[in-house]
Protein backbone atom coordinates (compact mmCIF):
# COMPACT_ATOMS: atom_id res chain seq x y z
CA UNK A 1 0.00 0.00 0.00
CA UNK A 2 1.35 3.41 -1.00
CA UNK A 3 1.82 6.47 1.17
CA UNK A 4 -1.16 8.68 1.97
CA UNK A 5 -1.93 10.77 -1.11
CA UNK A 6 -1.80 14.57 -1.10
CA UNK A 7 -4.96 16.68 -1.38
CA UNK A 8 -4.08 17.59 -4.96
CA UNK A 9 -3.64 13.96 -5.92
CA UNK A 10 -6.96 13.04 -4.33
CA UNK A 11 -8.70 15.94 -6.03
CA UNK A 12 -7.25 14.97 -9.41
CA UNK A 13 -8.38 11.39 -8.91
CA UNK A 14 -11.84 12.56 -7.81
CA UNK A 15 -12.24 14.78 -10.86
CA UNK A 16 -10.98 12.04 -13.16
CA UNK A 17 -13.62 9.68 -11.77
CA UNK A 18 -16.31 12.26 -12.46
CA UNK A 19 -14.98 12.79 -15.97
CA UNK A 20 -15.21 9.05 -16.57
CA UNK A 21 -18.88 9.21 -15.61
CA UNK A 22 -18.48 7.32 -12.34
CA UNK A 23 -20.77 8.09 -9.47
CA UNK A 24 -19.33 9.34 -6.20
CA UNK A 25 -20.72 7.30 -3.33
CA UNK A 26 -20.96 7.97 0.42
CA UNK A 27 -17.68 6.82 1.92
CA UNK A 28 -15.67 7.92 -1.12
CA UNK A 29 -13.25 10.79 -0.71
CA UNK A 30 -14.71 14.11 -1.86
CA UNK A 31 -13.60 17.73 -1.51
CA UNK A 32 -15.24 19.55 1.42
CA UNK A 33 -16.70 22.05 -1.01
CA UNK A 34 -18.42 19.27 -2.98
CA UNK A 35 -19.95 17.91 0.21
CA UNK A 36 -20.99 21.38 1.34
CA UNK A 37 -22.60 22.30 -1.96
CA UNK A 38 -24.45 19.00 -2.13
CA UNK A 39 -25.80 19.34 1.39
CA UNK A 40 -26.93 22.87 0.54
CA UNK A 41 -28.62 21.86 -2.72
CA UNK A 42 -30.16 18.60 -1.58
CA UNK A 43 -31.52 19.96 1.69
CA UNK A 44 -33.01 22.99 -0.08
CA UNK A 45 -34.58 20.59 -2.51
CA UNK A 46 -35.94 18.41 0.32
CA UNK A 47 -37.36 21.42 2.15
CA UNK A 48 -39.01 22.56 -1.08
CA UNK A 49 -40.85 19.28 -1.40
CA UNK A 50 -42.07 19.39 2.18
CA UNK A 51 -43.10 23.06 2.13
CA UNK A 52 -44.52 22.38 -1.33
CA UNK A 53 -47.11 20.09 0.24
CA UNK A 54 -48.81 23.15 1.77
CA UNK A 55 -50.07 25.27 -1.16
CA UNK A 56 -51.56 22.26 -2.92
CA UNK A 57 -52.64 20.52 0.26
CA UNK A 58 -54.78 23.58 0.97
CA UNK A 59 -57.04 22.55 -1.93
CA UNK A 60 -57.46 18.86 -1.06
CA UNK A 61 -60.59 19.70 0.98
CA UNK A 62 -62.07 21.57 -2.01
CA UNK A 63 -61.33 19.15 -4.86
CA UNK A 64 -64.46 19.10 -7.05
CA UNK A 65 -64.74 15.36 -7.77
CA UNK A 66 -63.79 12.22 -5.88
CA UNK A 67 -61.32 11.35 -8.61
CA UNK A 68 -59.62 14.76 -8.45
CA UNK A 69 -59.51 14.52 -4.69
CA UNK A 70 -57.75 11.15 -4.78
CA UNK A 71 -55.35 12.38 -7.47
CA UNK A 72 -54.46 15.49 -5.48
CA UNK A 73 -53.92 13.56 -2.26
CA UNK A 74 -51.70 11.13 -4.19
CA UNK A 75 -49.73 14.01 -5.66
CA UNK A 76 -49.18 15.83 -2.38
CA UNK A 77 -48.30 12.48 -0.84
CA UNK A 78 -45.68 11.97 -3.55
CA UNK A 79 -44.17 15.32 -2.63
CA UNK A 80 -43.83 14.12 0.95
CA UNK A 81 -42.20 10.99 -0.44
CA UNK A 82 -39.83 13.07 -2.54
CA UNK A 83 -38.90 15.09 0.52
CA UNK A 84 -38.23 11.81 2.25
CA UNK A 85 -35.97 10.51 -0.58
CA UNK A 86 -34.06 13.79 -0.63
CA UNK A 87 -33.51 14.00 3.13
CA UNK A 88 -32.17 10.47 2.77
CA UNK A 89 -29.70 11.62 0.09
CA UNK A 90 -28.61 14.51 2.31
CA UNK A 91 -28.24 12.19 5.31
CA UNK A 92 -25.79 10.08 3.33
CA UNK A 93 -23.44 13.10 3.47
CA UNK A 94 -23.29 13.02 7.26
CA UNK A 95 -26.05 15.39 8.34
CA UNK A 96 -29.22 14.23 10.03
CA UNK A 97 -32.85 15.09 9.47
CA UNK A 98 -33.19 16.62 12.92
CA UNK A 99 -30.67 19.34 12.14
CA UNK A 100 -31.94 19.93 8.61
CA UNK A 101 -35.50 20.40 9.84
CA UNK A 102 -34.34 22.60 12.72
CA UNK A 103 -32.59 24.87 10.21
CA UNK A 104 -35.74 25.08 8.08
CA UNK A 105 -37.97 25.90 11.03
CA UNK A 106 -35.50 28.51 12.30
CA UNK A 107 -35.76 30.26 8.94
CA UNK A 108 -32.08 29.56 8.21
CA UNK A 109 -32.58 27.22 5.26
CA UNK A 110 -33.89 28.10 1.85
CA UNK A 111 -36.53 26.37 -0.19
CA UNK A 112 -37.97 27.08 -3.62
CA UNK A 113 -39.51 30.54 -3.88
CA UNK A 114 -42.47 29.21 -5.82
CA UNK A 115 -44.10 27.86 -2.67
CA UNK A 116 -44.24 31.33 -1.16
CA UNK A 117 -47.00 32.26 -3.59
CA UNK A 118 -50.63 31.55 -2.66
CA UNK A 119 -53.01 29.12 -4.36
CA UNK A 120 -56.19 31.14 -4.89
CA UNK A 121 -58.45 29.06 -7.13
CA UNK A 122 -58.86 25.41 -8.05
CA UNK A 123 -57.27 26.09 -11.45
CA UNK A 124 -54.04 26.89 -9.61
CA UNK A 125 -53.81 23.18 -8.83
CA UNK A 126 -53.81 22.36 -12.53
CA UNK A 127 -51.37 25.16 -13.32
CA UNK A 128 -48.95 24.05 -10.60
CA UNK A 129 -49.01 20.51 -11.98
CA UNK A 130 -48.39 21.58 -15.53
CA UNK A 131 -46.28 24.72 -15.31
CA UNK A 132 -44.52 24.47 -11.96
CA UNK A 133 -43.94 20.72 -12.03
CA UNK A 134 -42.98 21.05 -15.69
CA UNK A 135 -40.22 23.45 -14.66
CA UNK A 136 -39.25 21.16 -11.79
CA UNK A 137 -39.01 18.18 -14.14
CA UNK A 138 -36.54 20.04 -16.39
CA UNK A 139 -34.31 20.58 -13.41
CA UNK A 140 -34.78 17.12 -11.97
CA UNK A 141 -34.15 15.34 -15.25
CA UNK A 142 -30.78 17.08 -15.33
CA UNK A 143 -30.05 16.25 -11.71
CA UNK A 144 -30.74 12.57 -12.37
CA UNK A 145 -27.36 12.68 -14.14
CA UNK A 146 -25.69 14.21 -11.10
CA UNK A 147 -22.30 12.80 -10.13
CA UNK A 148 -23.36 12.07 -6.54
CA UNK A 149 -24.89 8.57 -6.44
CA UNK A 150 -27.59 9.03 -3.77
CA UNK A 151 -28.76 12.35 -5.27
CA UNK A 152 -28.91 10.87 -8.74
CA UNK A 153 -30.86 7.83 -7.54
CA UNK A 154 -33.36 9.98 -5.63
CA UNK A 155 -33.85 12.05 -8.78
CA UNK A 156 -34.41 9.04 -11.04
CA UNK A 157 -37.10 7.85 -8.63
CA UNK A 158 -38.62 11.33 -8.39
CA UNK A 159 -38.67 11.91 -12.16
CA UNK A 160 -40.50 8.64 -12.71
CA UNK A 161 -43.25 9.81 -10.36
CA UNK A 162 -43.28 13.47 -11.33
CA UNK A 163 -44.55 12.79 -14.85
CA UNK A 164 -47.90 11.89 -13.28
CA UNK A 165 -47.99 15.29 -11.56
CA UNK A 166 -47.32 17.06 -14.80
CA UNK A 167 -49.86 15.12 -16.80
CA UNK A 168 -52.73 15.43 -14.34
CA UNK A 169 -52.15 19.21 -14.27
CA UNK A 170 -52.02 19.45 -18.03
CA UNK A 171 -55.21 17.42 -18.26
CA UNK A 172 -56.98 19.85 -15.92
CA UNK A 173 -55.87 23.03 -17.67
CA UNK A 174 -56.69 21.53 -21.06
CA UNK A 175 -60.23 20.79 -19.88
CA UNK A 176 -60.68 24.19 -18.21
CA UNK A 177 -59.31 26.16 -21.17
CA UNK A 178 -62.04 24.56 -23.27
CA UNK A 179 -64.63 24.54 -20.48
CA UNK A 180 -67.19 27.06 -19.27
CA UNK A 181 -66.33 30.79 -19.50
CA UNK A 182 -65.68 30.79 -15.74
CA UNK A 183 -63.30 27.86 -16.02
CA UNK A 184 -61.49 29.45 -18.91
CA UNK A 185 -61.09 32.63 -16.94
CA UNK A 186 -59.75 30.65 -13.95
CA UNK A 187 -57.17 28.96 -16.17
CA UNK A 188 -56.00 32.27 -17.66
CA UNK A 189 -55.84 33.91 -14.24
CA UNK A 190 -53.77 30.99 -12.93
CA UNK A 191 -51.34 31.32 -15.83
CA UNK A 192 -51.09 35.07 -15.27
CA UNK A 193 -50.09 34.59 -11.66
CA UNK A 194 -47.82 31.55 -11.95
CA UNK A 195 -45.95 32.29 -15.20
CA UNK A 196 -43.20 34.54 -13.89
CA UNK A 197 -42.65 32.77 -10.56
CA UNK A 198 -42.32 29.50 -12.50
CA UNK A 199 -39.62 30.95 -14.76
CA UNK A 200 -37.76 32.17 -11.69
CA UNK A 201 -37.62 28.58 -10.40
CA UNK A 202 -34.58 27.94 -12.58
CA UNK A 203 -32.65 30.33 -10.35
CA UNK A 204 -30.89 33.62 -10.95
CA UNK A 205 -29.40 34.37 -14.39
CA UNK A 206 -26.04 32.73 -15.07
CA UNK A 207 -24.34 36.11 -14.68
CA UNK A 208 -25.49 36.23 -11.05
CA UNK A 209 -25.35 32.55 -10.15
CA UNK A 210 -22.43 32.13 -7.79
CA UNK A 211 -22.42 28.35 -7.54
CA UNK A 212 -22.99 27.27 -11.14
CA UNK A 213 -19.39 27.06 -12.28
CA UNK A 214 -18.17 24.75 -9.52
CA UNK A 215 -21.31 22.65 -9.66
CA UNK A 216 -20.90 22.07 -13.38
CA UNK A 217 -17.21 21.26 -13.08
CA UNK A 218 -18.13 18.48 -10.65
CA UNK A 219 -21.17 17.46 -12.68
CA UNK A 220 -23.59 18.09 -9.88
CA UNK A 221 -25.37 20.18 -12.49
CA UNK A 222 -25.07 19.56 -16.21
CA UNK A 223 -26.73 22.70 -17.57
CA UNK A 224 -26.88 26.34 -16.49
CA UNK A 225 -29.96 28.07 -15.11
CA UNK A 226 -30.46 30.10 -18.28
CA UNK A 227 -30.05 27.08 -20.55
CA UNK A 228 -32.70 25.13 -18.70
CA UNK A 229 -35.03 28.12 -18.52
CA UNK A 230 -34.84 28.68 -22.26
CA UNK A 231 -35.43 25.01 -23.07
CA UNK A 232 -38.47 25.04 -20.83
CA UNK A 233 -39.90 28.22 -22.37
CA UNK A 234 -39.47 26.78 -25.86
CA UNK A 235 -41.32 23.66 -24.89
CA UNK A 236 -44.22 25.11 -22.95
CA UNK A 237 -45.11 28.35 -24.75
CA UNK A 238 -46.56 26.64 -27.85
CA UNK A 239 -48.65 24.39 -25.62
CA UNK A 240 -50.33 27.28 -23.84
CA UNK A 241 -50.86 29.19 -27.08
CA UNK A 242 -52.47 26.14 -28.67
CA UNK A 243 -55.10 26.21 -25.92
CA UNK A 244 -55.81 29.86 -26.64
CA UNK A 245 -54.29 31.01 -23.38
CA UNK A 246 -52.30 34.25 -23.30
CA UNK A 247 -48.79 34.39 -21.88
CA UNK A 248 -48.58 37.44 -19.58
CA UNK A 249 -45.53 38.90 -21.32
CA UNK A 250 -45.97 41.67 -23.93
CA UNK A 251 -42.38 41.20 -25.11
CA UNK A 252 -42.68 37.47 -25.83
CA UNK A 253 -41.74 36.65 -29.43
CA UNK A 254 -40.32 33.88 -31.54
CA UNK A 255 -36.80 34.38 -32.82
CA UNK A 256 -36.45 32.69 -36.21
CA UNK A 257 -32.68 32.74 -36.11
CA UNK A 258 -32.17 30.94 -32.80
CA UNK A 259 -35.45 29.04 -32.79
CA UNK A 260 -36.08 30.37 -29.30
CA UNK A 261 -39.15 31.92 -27.77
CA UNK A 262 -37.68 35.11 -26.27
CA UNK A 263 -39.21 36.52 -23.10
CA UNK A 264 -39.17 40.03 -21.68
CA UNK A 265 -37.17 40.93 -18.57
CA UNK A 266 -37.71 38.90 -15.39
CA UNK A 267 -38.25 40.97 -12.25
CA UNK A 268 -35.23 39.76 -10.31
CA UNK A 269 -35.91 42.27 -7.54
CA UNK A 270 -39.04 40.31 -6.76
CA UNK A 271 -37.03 37.07 -6.80
CA UNK A 272 -34.55 38.36 -4.21
CA UNK A 273 -37.32 39.93 -2.14
CA UNK A 274 -39.12 36.59 -1.86
CA UNK A 275 -35.86 34.75 -1.10
CA UNK A 276 -35.21 37.17 1.73
CA UNK A 277 -38.52 36.11 3.26
CA UNK A 278 -40.85 38.78 1.97
CA UNK A 279 -43.01 36.84 -0.46
CA UNK A 280 -46.76 36.69 0.02
CA UNK A 281 -46.75 33.42 1.96
CA UNK A 282 -43.25 33.01 3.50
CA UNK A 283 -44.29 33.58 7.10
CA UNK A 284 -47.41 31.48 6.82
CA UNK A 285 -45.60 28.51 5.26
CA UNK A 286 -42.95 28.37 7.97
CA UNK A 287 -45.56 28.84 10.65
CA UNK A 288 -47.55 25.89 9.31
CA UNK A 289 -44.43 23.71 9.32
CA UNK A 290 -43.52 24.84 12.85
CA UNK A 291 -46.99 24.10 14.11
CA UNK A 292 -46.99 20.58 12.63
CA UNK A 293 -43.53 19.98 14.06
CA UNK A 294 -44.33 21.25 17.55
CA UNK A 295 -47.73 19.62 17.76
CA UNK A 296 -46.17 16.35 16.63
CA UNK A 297 -43.33 16.39 19.15
CA UNK A 298 -45.24 14.41 21.80
CA UNK A 299 -46.07 11.78 19.17
CA UNK A 300 -42.47 11.28 18.11
CA UNK A 301 -41.37 11.15 21.75
CA UNK A 302 -44.07 8.64 22.69
CA UNK A 303 -43.06 6.19 19.98
CA UNK A 304 -39.42 6.57 20.83
CA UNK A 305 -40.15 5.90 24.52
CA UNK A 306 -42.18 2.82 23.63
CA UNK A 307 -39.41 1.50 21.38
CA UNK A 308 -36.79 2.07 24.06
CA UNK A 309 -38.79 0.11 26.62
CA UNK A 310 -39.32 -2.73 24.14
CA UNK A 311 -35.59 -2.90 23.48
CA UNK A 312 -34.82 -2.97 27.18
CA UNK A 313 -37.43 -5.65 27.78
CA UNK A 314 -36.01 -7.85 25.02
CA UNK A 315 -32.51 -7.54 26.50
CA UNK A 316 -33.58 -8.65 29.96
Amino acid sequence: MSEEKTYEEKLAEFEARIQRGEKIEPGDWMPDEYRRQLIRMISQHAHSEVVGMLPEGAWIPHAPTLRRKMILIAKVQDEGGHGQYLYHAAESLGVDREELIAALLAGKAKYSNIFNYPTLTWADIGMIGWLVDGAAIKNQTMLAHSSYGPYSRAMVRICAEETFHYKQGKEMITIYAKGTPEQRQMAQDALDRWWWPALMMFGPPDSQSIHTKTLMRWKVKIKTNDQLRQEFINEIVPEFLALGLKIPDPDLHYDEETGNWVIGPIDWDEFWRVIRGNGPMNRDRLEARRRAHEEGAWVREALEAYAQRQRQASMN
Partner: protein
Amino acid sequence: MTRDTQWPRWEVFKQDRPDRPHEAVGTVHAPDADVALLNARDVYVRRPSCYSLWVAPESAVFKMTAYELETTPNWWKEDLPEEAPEETYHIFNKQTQRRSMVAVTHVGNIQARSSREALRKAIDSGQFVEKIAYMWWVVPESAITRSNEEDVPSMFEPAEDKTYRDQSYYTGSVFARRSQRRPEDIRLS
Protein backbone atom coordinates in the same frame (compact mmCIF):
# COMPACT_ATOMS: atom_id res chain seq x y z
CA MET B 1 -38.40 21.05 25.37
CA THR B 2 -36.37 17.89 24.95
CA ARG B 3 -34.19 17.25 21.92
CA ASP B 4 -36.18 16.64 18.75
CA THR B 5 -36.24 13.12 17.38
CA GLN B 6 -36.99 12.09 13.84
CA TRP B 7 -36.42 8.44 14.91
CA PRO B 8 -33.58 6.21 13.69
CA ARG B 9 -33.04 5.35 10.04
CA TRP B 10 -33.79 1.96 8.52
CA GLU B 11 -32.51 0.75 5.19
CA VAL B 12 -35.28 -0.57 2.97
CA PHE B 13 -34.79 -3.46 0.53
CA LYS B 14 -37.53 -4.06 -1.98
CA GLN B 15 -38.16 -7.09 -4.17
CA ASP B 16 -40.33 -6.33 -7.17
CA ARG B 17 -41.15 -9.90 -8.14
CA PRO B 18 -40.45 -13.33 -6.64
CA ASP B 19 -37.83 -14.00 -9.34
CA ARG B 20 -35.95 -10.72 -8.76
CA PRO B 21 -33.39 -9.93 -6.07
CA HIS B 22 -33.97 -7.46 -3.25
CA GLU B 23 -32.64 -3.99 -3.97
CA ALA B 24 -31.75 -1.10 -1.66
CA VAL B 25 -34.29 1.63 -2.43
CA GLY B 26 -33.58 4.10 0.38
CA THR B 27 -34.32 4.67 4.05
CA VAL B 28 -37.25 5.45 6.30
CA HIS B 29 -37.28 6.86 9.81
CA ALA B 30 -39.05 4.69 12.36
CA PRO B 31 -38.96 4.02 16.10
CA ASP B 32 -38.95 0.22 15.76
CA ALA B 33 -38.91 -2.58 13.20
CA ASP B 34 -42.70 -3.05 12.96
CA VAL B 35 -43.29 0.62 12.24
CA ALA B 36 -40.29 0.67 9.90
CA LEU B 37 -41.87 -2.06 7.78
CA LEU B 38 -45.17 -0.16 7.51
CA ASN B 39 -43.35 3.09 6.73
CA ALA B 40 -41.29 1.34 4.09
CA ARG B 41 -44.49 0.17 2.45
CA ASP B 42 -46.11 3.59 2.55
CA VAL B 43 -43.03 5.40 1.26
CA TYR B 44 -41.70 2.94 -1.34
CA VAL B 45 -44.79 1.02 -2.50
CA ARG B 46 -47.10 3.86 -3.42
CA ARG B 47 -46.90 2.34 -6.88
CA PRO B 48 -46.54 -1.24 -8.10
CA SER B 49 -44.84 -3.48 -7.92
CA CYS B 50 -43.58 -5.17 -4.82
CA TYR B 51 -43.45 -8.73 -3.62
CA SER B 52 -41.34 -8.44 -0.48
CA LEU B 53 -39.81 -5.79 1.77
CA TRP B 54 -36.93 -6.05 4.20
CA VAL B 55 -35.94 -3.38 6.69
CA ALA B 56 -32.74 -3.26 8.75
CA PRO B 57 -31.40 -0.59 11.11
CA GLU B 58 -29.06 1.62 9.13
CA SER B 59 -26.47 1.20 11.85
CA ALA B 60 -26.44 -2.58 11.25
CA VAL B 61 -25.55 -2.26 7.57
CA PHE B 62 -21.82 -2.44 6.81
CA LYS B 63 -20.94 -0.45 3.69
CA MET B 64 -17.69 -0.20 1.74
CA THR B 65 -17.09 1.42 -1.62
CA ALA B 66 -14.45 0.13 -4.05
CA TYR B 67 -12.56 3.34 -3.35
CA GLU B 68 -12.56 2.66 0.40
CA LEU B 69 -11.44 -0.94 -0.06
CA GLU B 70 -8.58 0.28 -2.18
CA THR B 71 -7.48 3.12 0.08
CA THR B 72 -8.01 1.55 3.51
CA PRO B 73 -5.04 -0.70 4.27
CA ASN B 74 -5.99 -3.89 6.08
CA TRP B 75 -9.67 -2.95 6.10
CA TRP B 76 -10.61 -6.50 7.03
CA LYS B 77 -8.60 -6.49 10.27
CA GLU B 78 -10.62 -6.64 13.47
CA ASP B 79 -10.48 -8.19 16.90
CA LEU B 80 -12.76 -11.14 16.55
CA PRO B 81 -12.82 -13.87 19.18
CA GLU B 82 -12.09 -17.22 17.59
CA GLU B 83 -15.23 -18.71 19.12
CA ALA B 84 -17.56 -15.95 17.83
CA PRO B 85 -20.62 -17.73 16.40
CA GLU B 86 -21.23 -17.79 12.68
CA GLU B 87 -24.44 -16.42 11.19
CA THR B 88 -25.84 -15.64 7.79
CA TYR B 89 -24.86 -12.37 6.16
CA HIS B 90 -26.62 -10.95 3.13
CA ILE B 91 -24.29 -9.57 0.48
CA PHE B 92 -25.36 -6.70 -1.77
CA ASN B 93 -23.33 -4.81 -4.34
CA LYS B 94 -23.48 -2.37 -7.22
CA GLN B 95 -21.85 -3.46 -10.47
CA THR B 96 -22.93 -0.79 -12.92
CA GLN B 97 -22.68 2.96 -13.34
CA ARG B 98 -25.91 3.11 -15.29
CA ARG B 99 -28.57 5.49 -14.04
CA SER B 100 -30.65 3.69 -11.47
CA MET B 101 -33.00 4.24 -8.56
CA VAL B 102 -31.42 1.56 -6.41
CA ALA B 103 -28.10 1.65 -4.58
CA VAL B 104 -27.17 -2.04 -4.37
CA THR B 105 -28.65 -5.41 -5.32
CA HIS B 106 -28.77 -8.61 -3.31
CA VAL B 107 -26.24 -11.07 -4.72
CA GLY B 108 -26.16 -13.86 -2.13
CA ASN B 109 -25.39 -15.03 1.40
CA ILE B 110 -22.24 -15.91 3.31
CA GLN B 111 -21.73 -17.62 6.66
CA ALA B 112 -19.36 -15.56 8.76
CA ARG B 113 -18.63 -14.29 12.25
CA SER B 114 -18.85 -10.59 11.42
CA SER B 115 -19.82 -8.22 8.61
CA ARG B 116 -16.19 -7.54 7.83
CA GLU B 117 -15.38 -11.20 7.64
CA ALA B 118 -18.45 -11.76 5.46
CA LEU B 119 -17.31 -9.08 3.05
CA ARG B 120 -13.77 -10.43 2.88
CA LYS B 121 -15.09 -13.94 2.21
CA ALA B 122 -17.53 -12.61 -0.38
CA ILE B 123 -14.77 -10.79 -2.26
CA ASP B 124 -12.31 -13.68 -1.98
CA SER B 125 -14.86 -16.17 -3.28
CA GLY B 126 -15.15 -14.23 -6.53
CA GLN B 127 -18.67 -15.54 -6.96
CA PHE B 128 -20.54 -12.26 -6.39
CA VAL B 129 -19.03 -10.05 -9.08
CA GLU B 130 -18.92 -10.31 -12.84
CA LYS B 131 -16.41 -7.55 -13.59
CA ILE B 132 -16.28 -4.91 -10.93
CA ALA B 133 -18.23 -3.92 -7.81
CA TYR B 134 -18.35 -0.22 -7.03
CA MET B 135 -20.05 -0.62 -3.68
CA TRP B 136 -20.64 -3.44 -1.17
CA TRP B 137 -23.21 -3.70 1.62
CA VAL B 138 -23.37 -6.48 4.19
CA VAL B 139 -26.45 -7.07 6.37
CA PRO B 140 -26.65 -9.69 9.10
CA GLU B 141 -29.72 -11.89 8.85
CA SER B 142 -30.54 -11.15 12.51
CA ALA B 143 -30.95 -7.43 11.76
CA ILE B 144 -33.61 -7.92 9.08
CA THR B 145 -37.37 -7.66 9.59
CA ARG B 146 -39.32 -8.79 6.57
CA SER B 147 -42.82 -8.88 5.16
CA ASN B 148 -44.10 -12.35 4.35
CA GLU B 149 -46.09 -13.87 1.56
CA GLU B 150 -49.44 -13.44 3.35
CA ASP B 151 -48.80 -9.69 3.45
CA VAL B 152 -48.75 -9.36 -0.34
CA PRO B 153 -52.52 -8.88 -0.87
CA SER B 154 -52.92 -6.25 1.86
CA MET B 155 -49.56 -4.47 1.66
CA PHE B 156 -48.56 -4.50 -1.98
CA GLU B 157 -51.37 -5.47 -4.35
CA PRO B 158 -53.64 -2.49 -3.56
CA ALA B 159 -51.10 -0.19 -5.27
CA GLU B 160 -52.10 -1.80 -8.55
CA ASP B 161 -55.63 -0.43 -8.23
CA LYS B 162 -54.45 3.16 -7.87
CA THR B 163 -54.17 3.55 -11.60
CA TYR B 164 -54.53 7.33 -11.36
CA ARG B 165 -51.01 7.64 -9.97
CA ASP B 166 -49.52 6.19 -13.12
CA GLN B 167 -48.63 8.71 -15.79
CA SER B 168 -49.97 6.44 -18.53
CA TYR B 169 -53.46 6.97 -17.05
CA TYR B 170 -53.40 10.45 -18.62
CA THR B 171 -53.40 11.21 -22.30
CA GLY B 172 -51.02 13.65 -23.96
CA SER B 173 -47.28 13.96 -24.24
CA VAL B 174 -45.00 15.46 -21.63
CA PHE B 175 -43.60 18.27 -23.76
CA ALA B 176 -44.50 19.67 -27.18
CA ARG B 177 -42.69 18.00 -30.01
CA ARG B 178 -39.88 20.05 -31.50
CA SER B 179 -41.71 20.31 -34.83
CA GLN B 180 -44.66 22.01 -33.16
CA ARG B 181 -42.79 24.79 -31.45
CA ARG B 182 -42.80 27.51 -34.13
CA PRO B 183 -45.67 30.05 -34.12
CA GLU B 184 -46.94 28.96 -37.53
CA ASP B 185 -47.12 25.34 -36.38
CA ILE B 186 -49.35 26.08 -33.42
CA ARG B 187 -52.90 24.97 -34.00
CA LEU B 188 -55.63 26.01 -31.65
CA SER B 189 -57.05 22.86 -30.17
